[in-house]
């Protein structure tokens, strides 16, 4: 499905409140959005699914504010980014998210728990990064966004994004080297 298809589906939702069109948009983007939150919460499936649901519900409610000049995916990840920070603020007085990663997997994990256990090295490596670096790294390497799109999502200049990515890469290289990942030739 291309950007034109996205715009078409969006216009159907806006004009006719077409649920099937919105269903198609959710099916297309649920994988990426849930993976984004999964990495941000270090594998907490329950929280990542809740945040993903909140993202899509907000997208549905505010779809009229979507301007066709931006890509729908960029707009959606911008909402996800805000949802994550809202969640963080609400959790501020409780445990930090870094401590939340080891929590028992929730009942609504939609069958992704096995994959997370296989992916534990990536989750662990992301813990060495500062939050902004982590988000930039996730968006760049795991969600395939380019600098300018990441800049739109995180609402900061492209230069800052490049700095986050550079620092993030350096830290990850050091982490993998220390953890004995020479066989992957990183670092």
């Amino acid at each position: 499905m291309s950007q034109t298809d996205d715009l078409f589906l969006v216009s159907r939702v806006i004009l006719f409140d077409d649920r099937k069109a919105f269903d198609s948009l959710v099916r297309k983007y649920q994988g990426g959005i849930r993976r984004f939150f999964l990495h941000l919460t270090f594998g907490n499936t329950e929280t990542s699914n809740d945040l993903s649901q909140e993202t899509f519900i907000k997208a549905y409610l505010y779809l009229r504010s979507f301007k066709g000049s931006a890509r729908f995916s960029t707009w959606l990840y911008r909402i996800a980014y805000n949802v994550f920070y809202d969640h963080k603020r609400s959790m501020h007085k409780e445990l930090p998210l870094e401590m939340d990663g080891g929590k028992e997997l929730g009942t609504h994990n939609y069958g992704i728990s096995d994959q997370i256990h296989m992916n534990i090295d990536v989750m662990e490596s992301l813990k060495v990064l500062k939050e902004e670096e982590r988000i930039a790294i996730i968006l760049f390497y795991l969600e395939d966004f380019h600098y300018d799109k990441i800049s739109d999502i995180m609402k900061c200049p492209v230069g800052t994004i490049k700095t986050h990515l550079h620092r993030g890469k350096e830290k990850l290289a050091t982490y993998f080297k220390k953890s004995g990942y020479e066989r992957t030739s990183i670092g």
Partner: protein
Amino acid sequence: MRLILKNQVMKEQVLDKELSAYLSSNRIKIEDNGFTENLMKRLPPARKYGFLIYAFIIIGLLVALFTPGYEILVSQLYSFMGSLISFKMPSVEAIIITVSVTFGAILLFNITYDEGLA
């Protein structure tokens, strides 16, 4: 100095490629497994617009058939096609009508296709 910078850039490019390859190979593929269905149930109740679309289409067709609208529509579509064939710029009216008809047809096809009618 230039050599140091060149080495730095090369090191960065190698690191970039290796990280990209490592993270891509460990990328989790998340299947839907009922997520979308669950989400759709949580959306606010739908506005009942479906019947309105079809009502307007039928009213529009009836009005067009019993007024000069139908002839205008057809003549503007012919005018648009004729202009394209003779490499001339179509009139603004012809462009507006052709674009509207095309957009309407695609929209209608998409809705009926999704509902399994087409």
